[in-house]
């Protein structure tokens, strides 16, 4: 995928990058796209029940079906999948934060940073690539209109098919109806999602911390959650730069080392100043 931001957007929705990558191929050679009648029938069940309120959908033949519904239809869509499609196994529920990290991409070396007009990239806090423009972020399968999404996967254990249901969560009201009345097992998934992303699940029997200590502040899986250790220490892969073993040229290797060392020195000075400001 040409957009460098896509790989960074979300690990949980890694398949989302595939969606964008496959989409152009599908438009170029529409005849060669394999049909998946089973999943098309499943999708027809949703369109029949909700009509235009099926906001978007996506089928990867032989793999999965993605359906994005309105928040008001969230519980009804899950119930439909459970009752009509026989998806009685609740696989998981989780959230997505599509915003790119405002802290940049720590794990990438400075040399890989995209540079506008030949200028050196501005480093916000630490080493690594500066933040991605949020406008360039594409949301994976079945699209989306908001920064946050909640998605759940349901499996029909008899024929092995599964459905991924997604719902947009607007920034000003981070709440989704609970699924615990349909699947008791959704309880802990929603508790985890609540503490990691900060979504509330309306009607949930007890939203309290599951993994994190009780006094934990913040929502760690949000992209803007600062990882303090990274503020004071550059990514080890950038610091411990060694010449490739294949480099036979004895003069080339020391050059690389010094260049890398300079970059790290500059970065550590930069972050030392910002780090002090941050702590005060």
């Amino acid at each position, binding site marked *: 995928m040409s957009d460098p931001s896509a790989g960074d957007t979300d690990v949980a929705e890694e398949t989302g990058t595939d969606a964008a990558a496959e989409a152009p191929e599908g438009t170029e050679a529409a005849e060669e796209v394999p049909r998946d009648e089973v999943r098309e029938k499943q999708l027809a069940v949703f369109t029949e029940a909700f009509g235009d309120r099926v906001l978007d959908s996506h089928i990867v033949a032989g793999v999965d079906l993605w359906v994005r519904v309105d928040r008001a239809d969230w519980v009804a869509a899950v119930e439909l999948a459970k009752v009509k499609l026989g998806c009685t196994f609740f696989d998981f529920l989780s959230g997505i934060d599509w915003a790119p990290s405002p802290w940049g991409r720590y794990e990438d070396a400075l040399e890989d940073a995209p540079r506008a007009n030949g200028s050196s990239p501005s480093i916000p806090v630490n080493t690594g690539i500066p933040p991605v423009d949020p406008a360039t972020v594409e949301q994976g399968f079945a699209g989306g209109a908001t920064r946050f999404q909640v998605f759940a996967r349901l499996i029909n254990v008899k024929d092995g098919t599964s459905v991924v249901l997604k719902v947009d969560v607007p920034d000003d009201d981070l709440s989704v109806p609970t699924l615990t009345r349909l699947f008791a097992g959704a309880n802990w998934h929603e508790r985890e999602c609540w503490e990691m992303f900060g979504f509330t699940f309306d009607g949930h029997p007890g939203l309290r911390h599951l*993994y*994190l*200590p009780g006094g934990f502040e913040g929502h760690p899986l949000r992209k803007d959650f600062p990882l303090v250790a990274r503020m004071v*220490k550059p990514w080890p892969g950038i610091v411990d730069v060694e010449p490739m073993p294949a480099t036979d040229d004895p003069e080339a290797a020391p050059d690389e080392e010094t260049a890398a060392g300079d970059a790290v020195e500059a970065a550590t000075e930069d972050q030392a100043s910002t780090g002090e400001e941050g702590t005060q």
Partner: protein
Amino acid sequence: MGLVESGKLPKSLTTLLNLSRRYSMWCYQWGLACCAIEMGAAFAGPRYDVMRLGVIPLPASPRQADLVVISGTVTDKMAVSIKRLYEQMPDPKYVISMGSCTNCGGPYWDSYSVTKGVDQIVPVDVYVPGCPPRPEALLEGIVLLQQKIRHEDPATRWRGDPIVVQ
């Protein structure tokens, strides 16, 4: 034991006390992650046989333990329990930190939930590096601890309050 607390123990008695202490260490196992597998191999398996070193890895409770081996990823949520465990152990007590996660956070050095080194919570006597360390490495850590105890003045380890009989 007032002699021990005041540090006025005769040298011959200190030597005898240290000899018996270092070859009868009751070791509490505090396995938190994958390092616990290696610790289990070192402590419970016949191949490495930690009992030949005088370590008994089967105390029923921290109150019977002289040594605790903390192996694995210490999270902030678990840190409270480790502190309590340490406080329950009677003096003199020793801590071995096993594996990179316990030593410094290891691969989770930037995590939001992992304590970056158990020495932030309890004092550590021996660090065993590795990810995970082999059982031999843990055995070497125990031998190092025994060498440390050998040359030790028991009074320096006596951090607890004196026992008062009423």
